[in-house]
């Protein structure tokens, strides 16, 4: 079957299978799947504010999706996006808490972004280095690093970064110098009125990152190296590529991309860090990358899907209290199963449809 069909028809069928199972479960718990779907779509796209929130969530998912995809291209399964985003948040917070009253936004925000990328990359560097130089399996190491990151942050927030006098494990609010402007503010500056949502300029960065990702992975020497290492390590070695270095850099890039999820959340929306700010964004990235088949266009689309599921799901849970955020996690799991583990499950069934065209 032609490649375009493999890249479009199969993911669509996989998604449908996942949604079908979700529909069955919805029906099983006594709700009308069709009605829920309508409410969900309306919540996500039906009005301006909903769209804003959808795209806000999409932003983080694009970054973690790209992060997972980068590692996938190098043949690595980076489960550590969550921990990497977490640590990136630490980097951002440290910079902000130190400088938000002294540095102007034009210096502070880029500095924060560098800190996020640096901390994210550093947290991914160690598993990458261990894989490349010591042969320890990246999946197990990144899982362990998620737990280590969680413990570390729990400790730091609980004992050092906590707002003085606060009972909640969160930092103080960031100074306004560290806020990334929301899109509705930018639009207002240009005389356009948009509903007030946390959607911010990080979204633009996400789209830029996708374009850059495409160019680098498919049209640059380093991308060529990355993909070669990913599918055939011996050929990479033969071609004079430094396999270990490529793996390490791929992990660092992956970690740095995950870091942007922290930027989106902390500087774009909450303006303070609490213990649970990542909220699974790194794990969603796995589903996004798998469904998007590690291609930026696919990643944007599947990140949008998850953005919509998150936002629409929240709206839905107001109408239908029995359907909660966990339903989205369930769908995420099904998508990982169908789009990832069983990605070509339907190929034999539909390959026949394309046969005749091939023969011509």
């Amino acid at each position, binding site marked *: 079957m032609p490649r375009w069909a493999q890249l479009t028809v199969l993911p669509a069928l996989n998604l449908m299978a996942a949604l079908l199972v979700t529909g069955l479960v919805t029906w099983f718990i006594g709700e009308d799947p069709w009605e829920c779907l309508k409410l969900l779509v309306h919540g996500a796209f039906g009005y301006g504010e909903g769209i804003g929130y959808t795209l806000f969530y999409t932003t983080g998912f694009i970054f973690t999706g790209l992060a997972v995809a980068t590692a996938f291209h190098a043949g690595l399964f980076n489960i550590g996006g969550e921990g990497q985003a977490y640590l990136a948040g630490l980097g951002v917070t440290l910079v902000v808490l130190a400088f938000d009253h002294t540095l102007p936004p034009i210096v502070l925000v880029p500095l924060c972004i560098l800190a996020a990328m640096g901390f994210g990359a550093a947290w991914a560097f160690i598993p990458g280095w261990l894989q490349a130089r010591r042969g320890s399996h990246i999946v197990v190491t990144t899982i362990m690093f998620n737990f280590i990151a969680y413990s570390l942050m729990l400790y730091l927030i609980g004992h050092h970064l906590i707002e003085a006098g606060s009972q909640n494990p969160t930092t103080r609010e960031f100074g306004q110098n560290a806020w990334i402007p929301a899109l509705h503010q930018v639009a207002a500056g240009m005389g356009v009125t948009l509903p007030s949502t946390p959607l911010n300029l990080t979204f633009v960065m996400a789209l830029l990152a996708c374009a850059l990702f495409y*160019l680098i992975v498919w049209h640059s020497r380093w991308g060529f190296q990355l993909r*070669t290492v990913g599918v055939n390590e011996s050929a990479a070695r033969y*071609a004079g590529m430094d396999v270990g270095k490529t793996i390490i850099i791929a992990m660092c890039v992956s970690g740095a991309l995950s870091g942007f999820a922290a930027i989106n959340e902390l500087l774009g929306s909450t303006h303070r860090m609490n213990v649970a700010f990542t909220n699974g964004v790194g794990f969603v990235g796995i589903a996004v990358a798998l469904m998007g088949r590690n291609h930026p266009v696919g990643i944007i689309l599947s990140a949008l899907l998850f953005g919509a599921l998150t936002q629409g799901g929240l709206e839905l849970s107001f109408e239908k209290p029995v359907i909660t955020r966990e339903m989205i996690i369930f769908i995420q799991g099904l998508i990982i199963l169908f789009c990832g583990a069983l990605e070509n499950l339907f190929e034999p069934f539909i390959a026949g449809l394309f046969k005749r065209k091939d023969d011509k």
Partner: protein
Amino acid sequence: MTEFAIELIGISKRFGTVLANSDVSMKIARGSIHGIIGENGAGKSTLMSILYGYYQADSGDIKVNGQDVRIRNSQEAINLGIGMVHQHFMLVDTFTVLENIVLGAEGGLVLQQGMEQAREHLKQLNRDYSLEVDPDAVVGDLGVGLQQRVEILKALYRGADVLILDEPTAVLTPQEADHLFRILRALKEQGKTVILITHKLREVMDITDGVTVMRAGTVVGNVVTADVDKEKLADLMVGRKVTLKVDKAAAKPGAAVLDVRGLGLTDERGVKLLDKLDFQVRAGEIVGIAGVSGNGQSELLEVLAGMLEPTEGEIRYKGEDLAKTRSGLPKAAAWRRKGIAHVPEDRSREGLVKAFSTFENAILGYQGDKSLSRRGLFSRKALLARTREFISQFDIRPGNPLLRVGLLSGGNQQKVVLAREIHANPDLLLIGQPTRGVDIGAIEFIHKRLVQLRDQGKAILLVSVELDEILALSDRILVMAGGQITGEVSAEEADTVSLGLLMGGHKH
């Protein structure tokens, strides 16, 4: 009971568009050693896989001891008394010999009892066939020859009356091969039937009673060994005169391009893979390295290509000590830039990325070429232009640069690699198994091309396990055995006997 242990009648098997076996029939007498010979891809292995239950034939019948049988999996084959010794041994390295032997035939839910019985039985078998295998040795610690005997024991332990051996001598030294043949003769004396798959004519002549010759999936001859000679078999097997000849003038070698001094490679277990090699390759000559596979040739190529770090010695290229090169690049890349090209032995594992399109494979190893990139990004136009050039120069088919290279035939894949490696106009070409899995037309093309390169003044180091190829192309021949160079002969004085002796480790 008939006199035939195995009868195959009209076996056909198709894989996709490839007809691997077409109407294959043969009868194998009980208590005989039967050879099945044919070139790579003649369908021998497929046929035996059908007999051993890995594949089901699309049509045709199998009789074992005169009875019609259906063999749906290897367990059924074992039950019918058929045993198989694979080319790549099917042993669990971490298990002892005994554990390997009882695996799948444990004789009960609890191991202990079966193991004790097996130990006794093993003693008996060891005695009967002088196999000399220690049942408590860990298989991973054993040498190749012994591992093969473990495989034979495994089959015998399961009561095999028919033993299939797939290219058993490919990995053995001549001494080990002789030992194996003694074992096979002993098996025959005990009434066992042996099927020997090989492409070595000498073996067939030495040891078999009957031979089936296969070519392109069909049987082209079922003969009694005593009635034929080597030449006749070779003729049947190849379907043309085997005398592989490449027209070439005498070499006019110039200065040494490659100068190897005291080169050694010792692995982490202390085994010497390369042992103090000294040789030169001069401009305008082809130096062939002959030897049974696994005697250090592969490692030599990888060391010379900068993919493996030697543990001692010096490699001089055009007078310069390569170890002293400082470029910040991995050695393989740095040396390639200096003009050392490398066609690797294993095309699909190293030389190509099968999932990539032809045009991406056409730059593998040369991705750093300045002419391919503009402002850090590849110029697609330049990549495609280079690929089209290769396609027309080397007549690569299908000539679509965007096609995945894995879809090309072996010969065309090899042409992609060769075209790529020659393109940079290297001074030294390292080439391993240039025609492995390559069709006949492409073989001639590739051979001619290599001679042309030589005549242009390139230095060529050729590693091949095909003696014919070595003899046809080389100006000088070095023979490797056990990681050492056991001798050097010029092309004129070389013959298979002298080379065979050197390959077996007899030094000049």
